[in-house]
């Protein structure tokens, strides 16, 4: 047979493929128009913000634009000794311009991110610069404060020269580029982010495990009980969904506080002494308890939807073929629920890893997560680029987990209902 396939024509002599495309075009346009609003919405609310976040996390143009002449002059500086007069002159020129525009405060904030101690010396420099005489700026600037005569601070300024930087990501991992340009960790007692990352992973992991352990029997009951009971149980599972997240978290605060209901109960049954009430809130315990309860439905529902499809005759078959109830469960029922387990665990883990309100309210200092740190930088320090960088690190962490899941279990093996 010839390898060439003969072109098939329609009865009118038009090639079949052309004719088919023509016939389908109208449908394709219709379909596209139908999804267009959603596509537009997604681009506006998802693709664009994430792109902006990615850009913001590496964008370092601000200082570059504030001190253009300084960085130009610094190009020939080797960074070993204090820079030459021409650098100081250029810096003075840039600085005067900033003061005129009232933007020297921003510069001080930015430089302070790079190295602590810039705030005060820039303030001093602003005051002193009014009385500066022309020429010999090196001497004049160095005389304002001894830090201006410290080569470390000039190196810190030089590090802000590139328009783009990855240093926010390093900072998110408690690392920085030191004076020799090497990536090193910060001192032991200043490493706050690593602890937070690990704690976030730990809490997300254990919340997932607790949710799984609790949801599995519930979902099984839901799937096997007669309709009238299972409906009631389903309402119990879904009831928290209909309540505001804040209300739920607040009720956990009422329950878990030291003079709260749970503690009263423990004291009442004599489990703990009245003067020795355990702290169940403002620490990890609080985060665990509240997050597990709040995320439980996200585990129950995928499990339920999978279990609902497993015919009860399969378990019966397993038993009638000689398997003990445990063997029938483990070899027959459990493997069939894996798609639901995968979906539920992935869902809960990903939600937990980025959880914010609940740990902020009941987590205290030892129960907060990385998201709380991100919020802190968004709201308090206004270091948005750092917040963006950590947000992206979180996002890539989730993507890695997703990828791992796909490798191990297979993403087709997921069932949300």
């Amino acid at each position, binding site marked *: 047979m010839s390898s060439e396939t003969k072109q098939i024509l329609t009865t009118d002599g038009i090639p079949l493929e052309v004719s088919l495309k023509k016939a389908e075009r109208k449908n394709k346009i219709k379909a596209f128009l139908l999804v267009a609003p959603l596509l537009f919405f997604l681009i506006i609310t998802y693709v664009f913000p994430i792109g902006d976040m990615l850009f913001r996390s590496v964008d370092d143009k601000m200082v570059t634009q504030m001190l253009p002449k300084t960085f130009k002059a610094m190009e020939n500086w080797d960074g070993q000794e204090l820079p030459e007069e021409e650098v100081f002159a250029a810096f003075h020129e840039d600085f005067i311009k900033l003061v005129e525009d009232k933007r020297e405060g921003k510069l001080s904030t930015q430089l302070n991110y790079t190295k602590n101690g810039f705030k005060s010396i820039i303030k001093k420099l602003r005051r002193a610069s009014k009385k500066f005489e022309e020429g010999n700026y090196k001497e004049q600037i160095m005389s304002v404060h001894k830090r201006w005569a410290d080569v470390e601070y000039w190196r810190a300024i030089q590090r802000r020269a590139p328009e783009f930087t990855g240093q926010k990501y390093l900072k998110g991992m408690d690392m920085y580029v030191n004076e020799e340009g090497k990536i090193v960790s910060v001192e032991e007692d200043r490493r706050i982010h690593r602890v937070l990352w690990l704690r976030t992973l730990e809490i997300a992991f254990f919340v997932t495990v607790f949710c799984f352990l609790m949801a599995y029997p519930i979902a099984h009951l839901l799937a096997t009980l007669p309709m009238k009971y299972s409906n009631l149980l389903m309402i119990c599972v879904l009831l928290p969904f209909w309540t505001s997240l804040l209300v739920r978290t607040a009720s956990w605060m009422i329950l878990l506080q030291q003079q709260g209901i749970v503690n009263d109960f423990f004291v009442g049954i004599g489990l703990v002494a009245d003067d020795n009430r355990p702290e169940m809130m403002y620490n990890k315990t609080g985060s665990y308890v509240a997050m597990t309860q709040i995320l439980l439905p996200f585990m129950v529902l995928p499990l339920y939807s999978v279990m609902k499809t497993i*015919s009860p005759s399969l378990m019966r*078959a397993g*038993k*009638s*073929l*000689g398997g003990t109830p445990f063997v029938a469960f483990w070899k027959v029922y459990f493997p069939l629920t894996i798609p639901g387990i995968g979906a539920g665990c992935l869902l809960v883990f990903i939600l937990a890893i980025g959880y914010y309100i609940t740990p902020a309210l009941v987590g205290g200092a030892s129960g907060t997560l990385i998201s709380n740190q991100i919020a802190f930088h968004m709201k308090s320090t206004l270091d948005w680029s750092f917040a963006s960088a950590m947000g992206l690190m979180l996002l890539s962490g989730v993507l890695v987990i997703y990828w791992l899941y796909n490798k191990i279990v297979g993403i087709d093996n997921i069932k949300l209902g």
Partner: protein
Amino acid sequence: MASKKDFVKFDKVDKSYDGKVLVVKDLQLDIAEGEFITMLGPSGSGKTTCLMMLAGFETPTNGEIYLDGKAISSIPPHKRGIGMVFQNYALFPHMTVYENLAFPLRVRKIPKDEADKKIDKALSMVSLQGFAARMPGQLSGGQQQRVAVARSLVFDPQLVLMDEPLGALDKNLRESMQYEIKHIHESIGVTVVYVTHDQSEALTMSNRIAVFNDGKVQQLSSPDELYEKPVNSFVAEFIGENNTFGGEVSDISGGKCKVKLANAEILANPISVKGKGERTTVSLRPERALINPSTKMDNLHKGKIEEVIYHGDHTRVRINLLGNPEFILKVPNSSSNLDIKLGNEINIGWNSDDARALDPK
């Protein structure tokens, strides 16, 4: 091997799910070793409940079930060693055909080479060699059913239960599977308890049939006896086609009885009527009544043809006879078919032996 007459014995078994209604009432049933027995009945008649009690998934509310002389009510299903074929196959979808068949052998800790032999044998029994590596989802309905049968037999149980196993198959496949299951039963001699609501399936396959209705066994007998000699009007109605006349016994003597209908009198065979004045339903199979009979028959009446339906090998004729407008006749298609035309009056005759006077409906 002398086969036991009461290999499986239901002894005064009652079953109720809600404490109000008895689903199974005072069931007394002996099943012989090597027998193919079918529980036949409409849905809700208690036949599946009986099977589930035998398998161990339901417990009798009262009474006891014996398997090979041992009371089994307190034995859990997995220790009963009974093979079972489920209505929707119940193959384990995440296991290959091989693994499905290996499951009962693995839990019994049978060594692998011996297990492989058994699996090969079971697969060849249902002519599915070469399918061992397939997943159940890759098989057709009929093939899945065969795997289910093979799986229920692979561990050599003495008793196999089948719960409407062919219900989901199309008609042709169902018929060929009926023969296949029958042949498997004949070749290995296992005792089979089969549940179905399809009477033709029951008649084709079984040694004996237990007709269930309303939680009770109405009749337990061989297929031919069930069809030819139903003992009550439920069985007569349920098995095959049936013409009935409701009336009153006006005379009974010499193995015959006269039954008075609204405007006529017929002769019948008294089965469950004892004396004069009793209400009765007379049951007559369509093929036992003849048009213009050549031999002498003790019932001969005139009827008007209301409907003629052509069926290929035979023609169904609906006749208004003795006040019963639903009287059905089956006439073999041959050239000698005279005046079967709509509206014609014809003579219908039958022997009083074939007209069974049963309990009133």
